[in-house]
């Protein structure tokens, strides 16, 4: 690469690999930075754990969505002759109290679990982020009204709220995602609002307003990127929360009606039958839930590395 400017280098920096620096070709050519996405990719893949988490998540998605195409089972009819069979050649992970194949059950249960978990995590985090950032950034009466609304919703017991909503609306998966998100975004909004309050007075935000930047420009360019670290980690916890909440809602019979199922429901069945020695009804579902929660968590960790630019090596 040709260096056009003065040979002065920033000194505090870590040693740099010249391959990642922009090439300054001709005099009229202007140095534009390398793609943010490429840098992000490099940082993410450097976090081994996050990469493993991503692979696990992909495998779990394949298991739930592609699995039933390979491993055919009847998940509609109950078959009382086959109830509570231990794992064998014909039923790899045994059967349920209704006589359905456990492995097949885990596959279709995985679909709704993953949909609800990721859906709620994404929806609640996005909405909470926007809501909290607006409240924190606007301040004054807007902030007071917006946050009192959050406080009011938080004061309603969570399960009561979900039961109430589930009773009012017709329960399908999409509705359930919305209902769980409506509870879940509240704490994110509070967290984001608090962070925004401190970011709002930072010099670089004041500087940006000093160029005449509008509120939405400041929120998009400065507030949100600086919030991402906290929000992403918080969001991964939301995924785990949502999966468990889904289980308790389903346990109360408010989820989609059988034969639809989810991992949480399978676990509660397994717990009920644990003393009969039907371990295969509990452990596989438990392992899958732990696996997906951990996977999402380490992915979140990796993502927060990506937004924490100080960790970027070059």
């Amino acid at each position: 690469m040709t260096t056009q400017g003065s040979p002065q280098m920033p000194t505090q920096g870590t040693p740099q690999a010249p391959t990642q620096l922009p090439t300054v070709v001709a005099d009229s050519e202007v140095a534009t930075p390398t793609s943010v996405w490429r840098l992000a990719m490099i940082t993410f893949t450097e976090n081994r754990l996050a990469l493993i988490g991503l692979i696990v998540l992909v495998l779990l998605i394949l298991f739930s969505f592609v699995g039933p195409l390979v491993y055919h089972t009847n998940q509609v009819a109950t078959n009382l002759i086959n109830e509570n069979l231990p794992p064998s050649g014909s039923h790899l992970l045994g059967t349920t109290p209704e006589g359905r194949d456990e492995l097949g059950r885990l596959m279709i249960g995985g679909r709704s679990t993953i949909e609800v978990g990721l859906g709620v995590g994404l929806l609640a985090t996005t909405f909470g982020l926007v809501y909290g950032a607006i409240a924190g950034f606007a301040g004054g009466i807007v902030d007071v009204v917006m946050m009192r609304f959050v406080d009011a919703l938080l004061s309603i017991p969570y399960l009561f709220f979900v039961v109430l909503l589930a009773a009012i609306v017709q329960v399908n998966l999409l509705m359930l995602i919305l209902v769980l998100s409506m509870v879940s975004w509240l704490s994110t909004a509070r967290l984001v609002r608090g962070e925004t309050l401190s970011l709002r007075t930072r010099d670089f935000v004041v500087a940006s307003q000093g160029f005449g930047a509008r509120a939405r420009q400041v929120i998009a360019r400065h507030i949100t990127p600086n919030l991402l670290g906290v929000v992403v980690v918080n969001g991964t916890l939301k995924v785990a929360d949502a999966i468990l909440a889904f289980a308790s809602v389903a346990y109360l019979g408010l989820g989609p009606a059988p034969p639809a199922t989810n991992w949480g429901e399978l676990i509660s069945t397994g717990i009920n039958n644990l003393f009969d020695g039907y371990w295969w009804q509990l452990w596989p579902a438990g392992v899958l839930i732990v696996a997906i929660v951990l996977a999402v968590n380490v992915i979140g960790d990796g993502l927060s590395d990506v937004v924490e630019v100080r960790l970027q090596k070059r």
Partner: protein
Amino acid sequence: MSEAAKRVLEVEHLRTEFHLRAGTVAAVDDVSLTIDEGECVGLVGESGCGKSTTGLSIMRLLPAVGHITAGKVMLGGRDLVGLSEPQMRAVRGNDVAMIFQDPMTSLNPTTQIGVQVAEPLRIHFGTSRKAAMDRALEMLDLVGIPNPRERMRDYPHQLSGGLRQRVMIAMALTAEPKLLIADEPTTALDVTIQAQILDLLDRLRSELSMAVLLITHDMGVIAGRADRVIVMYAGKIVEAASTPELFGTTRHPYAQALLESVPQLTTSSTDRIPSIPGHPPDLANLSGGCRFAPRCRYAEPACIAAEPPLETLPDGHLVACIHPVGLAQAAGAGAAEQPPAVEVVLEQPESLPQAPVVDAAARRSELADAPLLVEIENLVKEFPIRRGLGIGGGAASLKAISGVSLTIRRGETFGLAGESGCGKTTLGRIVAAHEYPTSGTVRIEGDELLKLSRAELRRHRSDLQLMFQDPYASLDPRMRVGAIIREPLMVQGVGNRRQQWERVAELLNEIGLNRRAVDLYPHEFSGGQRQRIGMARALALSPRLIVADEPVSALDVSIQSQILNLMKRLQSDHGLTYMVISHDLAVLRYLSDTIGVMYLGKLVELGPSASVYANAAHPYTHGLIQAIPIPDPKIERAKRSAPVRGELPSAVNPPSGCRFRTRCPLAQEICAELDPPMQVFGEGHVAACHFPLQSPTDDAPPRGITVAAPAAVS
């Protein structure tokens, strides 16, 4: 160091290492020093030179990664390095005490100050509660806290910064330690308060015959207070001598350069201050040889070959240099003019911002004809103080600015001085349209700022830019430098993508940074470079006015001058107008054409900087100028006690009449009754005082200032 004096502390070949992930760094390398009873030893150097680590090593209060790997710290016949942690706890506060820079974070906010001052006694001697509290009262009285009996029950947040530092000192001294380590004890304080605290330390040192290790970056503080000076650079001692010796005949090139780069009151706005090129070395990758060689103007190949040992020169200086200044250089005359012989300098000399040399008279006459850019009339800003729920009228308000009028001409640098809390920052924010005044008008080029619509104001903002104090907080840590500088262009929609990047490259060039900087994040730059990046961003929209709030107070002296010189060069290149806000009158003297002094929301003096500094008419201005520590032991020691007494009164209920009267040595009854009017003291120089230090003249007042009728004066 007379034979009679008792040796208190003896540090021998101390080496402190930090075990970091990147490798082991010797933050303190082979440091030896002694302090006698009643003696004050000054330790100076840039940030990161190891001066604070030396202090912490003596206290054995190093962070977890820090270890003392060699050397001895002898205190009262014991080697502190070998003591166990419980033994060390008995030493701390009892034999050695330490005071820190920030008294707010060093005091427990949830405990009354009386209890905190009594704590060392309760811990070390198991004194009864009653006796310890009596002693605490005595100590608070000793450190000059007014009404100590009532103050005992106060919490830290109820005290001002100066009083808090007094409490810290009282706390450190309750157990009467033999050695006091003062780590930048006055850096966070105003000059007026700084002088009071330093006087207090001096008094206590002689009364209690304590040994004091004064750690500071401020050469002026050292000149006035220390008996001996030790200069550190990159973890090593480079020069040590008695204070008059060191300031009189500086031997090490680093110490010399450090002294030169301090802006002084005598530096006029047409001078240039030299700066030290480059940065201190990265202690993790030392190349061997003299550590200062890459930045040294006298360096030659021999300097990078081997590290020079610390040797005693015939005149008593301890110096670590192959060619001490004034000895070896005398042979080859004019060596000082030569550029560094070693090509290790990281920034090319021409890329370093140089201030233009301007003729003072020409500049003054040019400015006198320039059109007005900023006109401020009767500006008032009050912040309502909300108590409880904030409901209920008639609440008190904090009077930040009470009727300020002034004008700034195009191309001029207006310096605004005053203690913290005087309203100078608020005034700057109003001028930059970041705050709305309660009443009064601000006109920029004739357009009234407050009458603009939101859209007009947004467009207008490209004319007004802010420059910030803290270069670490003013750049978004998640944006790369290119995006940071480009942001204002995007916001205002100037040019297309390509033109914007061209402008970024142009701006980087102007501030002397390589184009490759666009791809790097702010944390990859040093403080001075970041401040330059902030400057480039402020310049992106070609503003007419830049409001710089304490532009250099967060930087080391050696880097300060780089920024000041850059500001001057950019001003002459682009015809910029500056409003510089600073507590540092020496910096303002160097930058400004006109100076305004604020006290508790009022402008008390305004005039051409040369005239204000030479013939200050207001006792407050005079006191402020007097309080600045000057890096010359002769001048500094000749000064009598702190020129401005006491603390800034509350802006919620400011004193009647002249607001300065509560601290003024000349105050009389009339000062409490009548608000003094502005009077003229020479061309363009006005001040508001009943008993001015100069006699009024009948020159015309500067534009926009109403003065009293001459008849009413006499």
